[in-house]
């Protein structure tokens, strides 16, 4: 198989303006990947599938990944005017503004995104994997990506799963519905900031996290309804 860099060059030659980016993978597996721009994704996918040398005809795996917004604290040096008392020209003390550099910690929110990763193999040439990735603009309102289902049918159910669990909206998918959760469900449970429903009413040996939740629930219930009716309800 060609190396990932060669494939990148081949894509750029075939699909002008493809916007392919090489993403290196520092782990021992050394499966480097290519990040493709969403607008040219379908063209790139078609090229990868139909090119005689590459012939990536088998899309094995589609994964959603959530990269939440990150708060990055960084130290910056800023210049500031401070008032200092200095010796004036006529021997008196005067207040005078001077420039000074100070260190300040600033918090910056790096906007997160949703990523979809595709693993391609070639059945005809028996090589692979080639890893493609695509990113949405953010995690809230611009979560559209083009669907690769028209190119590889195997993306059909897997993209539905990513839509269900992560909330990526695949444009051009023939049947984009929730796959695993029920239709009326509102959340995207695989996102990192998903809050699970509080249904640990009872745990015989609560500990850690569960104990905290049990305690919170108890406090809440006491606040809302007064002491809980602990008698056995008629069964």
């Amino acid at each position: 198989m060609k190396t990932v860099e060669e494939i990148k060059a081949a894509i750029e030659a075939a699909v002008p303006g493809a916007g392919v980016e090489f993403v290196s993978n520092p782990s021992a597996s050394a499966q480097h990947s290519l990040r493709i721009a969403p607008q040219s994704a379908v063209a790139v996918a078609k090229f990868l599938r139909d090119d005689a040398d590459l012939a990536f005809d088998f899309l094995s795996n589609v994964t959603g990944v959530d990269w939440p917004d990150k708060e990055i604290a960084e130290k910056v040096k800023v210049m500031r005017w401070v008032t200092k008392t200095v010796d004036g020209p006529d021997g008196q003390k005067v207040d005078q503004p001077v420039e000074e550099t100070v260190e300040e910690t600033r918090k910056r929110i790096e906007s997160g995104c949703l990523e979809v990763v595709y693993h391609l193999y070639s059945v005809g040439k028996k090589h692979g994997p080639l890893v493609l990735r695509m990113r949405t603009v953010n995690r809230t309102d611009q979560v559209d990506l083009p669907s690769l289902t028209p190119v590889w049918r195997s993306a059909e159910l897997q993209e539905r799963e990513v839509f269900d669990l992560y909330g990526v909206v695949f444009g051009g998918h023939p049947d984009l519905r929730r796959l695993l959760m029920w239709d009326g469900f509102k959340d995207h449970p695989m996102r990192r900031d998903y809050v699970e429903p509080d249904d640990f009413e009872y745990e015989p040996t609560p500990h850690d996290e569960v104990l905290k939740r049990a305690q919170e629930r108890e406090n809440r219930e006491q606040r809302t309804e007064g002491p809980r009716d602990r008698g056995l309800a008629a069964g």
Partner: protein
Amino acid sequence: MTVVENKAERAEGWNRPQVIEPDGEGELLEVAMGPHHPSTHGVFRMDVALDGERVVRLKPVFGYLHRNHEKIAEGASYLASMPYTDRLDYFCSLTNNWAYALAVEKLVGQVVPERAEYIRVILAELTRVQNHASSIGFLIQEMGASGTPLMYAFKEREKILDLFESLTGSRMMCNYMRFGGCRVDVSASWLDATRKVVAGLPAFVDEFEALLSSNEILMARCQGVGILRPELAINAGVSGPMLRGSGVNYDVRKVDHYGIYDRFKFRIPLGDHGDIYDRYMVRILEMRESIKIIEQALRDLPAGPIMDTRAKLRGFRPKPGEAYGRIEAPKGELGFYLISDGGLNPYRYRVRPPSLINLTILEDMCLGHNVADVVLIFGSVDIVLGEVDR
């Protein structure tokens, strides 16, 4: 291999299910098969639209066994997910273990000692034999042979499960493999017992075949039913015996050379028609090849450690990066995709479930057939719900 594609044929939408027009007489009947249906292998649902007996639309509905394996695994350490992988495809816990161990080994660059590799092969092939036997049993059960072939299959399965139990401590949920080896060593008496069971397997397959392969009902109901074209099979990501039943020579054991599979002599059975009967036959022949592999592995099993001494078990933190590892599980290509951010838990943990992806083309195979055939076509895919929904 009869493939690959003529590009001119690749018009838009060639890989979509065909649209079947009802004949216009009477109304369409909508049937929800499942989630409680005796032949859906658990809790699977198909919403079928019928024109008389003929299927004109079929939409699978998933998620009735969605147990949040991936979410739980992202909150647990790497090793803690190993017992959960047992519960994915609960017929084949050992191959699931192997796929996961392989992905982690790729992620950290861990080597596995020889002896452990041989043990893995023996166990994986035993798993394959019992899985194929039971899946054929279920297929025939769906055809209406209530019980008998399944009893034969389970009789043999029990013998193999006894081996698993005496080695790993559990019949089904073995939790046996570790990153860099296996959990316990096999004993001489276990090997003797295994040799005895394996020596009996060919006779079992012969008996099974004598019972089934030329059975008139089986042939009448399976031949020419549920045909899957090879181009579509590849495009839809179908793998395992389904793909090979359609005549595509693709077996991850031969392609990826993972483990030590290139030391063994075995062949890859292929079908020609891509119908249910071919899938059945591929499974039967694969059992025979697996038996050959086990015999060779038992013969060559070297002495030595079963765990790499440099393998880290406590405080296991892979370096940041990602890896995709896959093996040929009895159901198809089972892969694990892991992203590490350098922490104790995987940042992203994804299972590539062969059972789910093999169901992508269920509608294509069923359209135009009678409703009774749907059950058979579905059975021939050989799925396990724990893996479909995870």
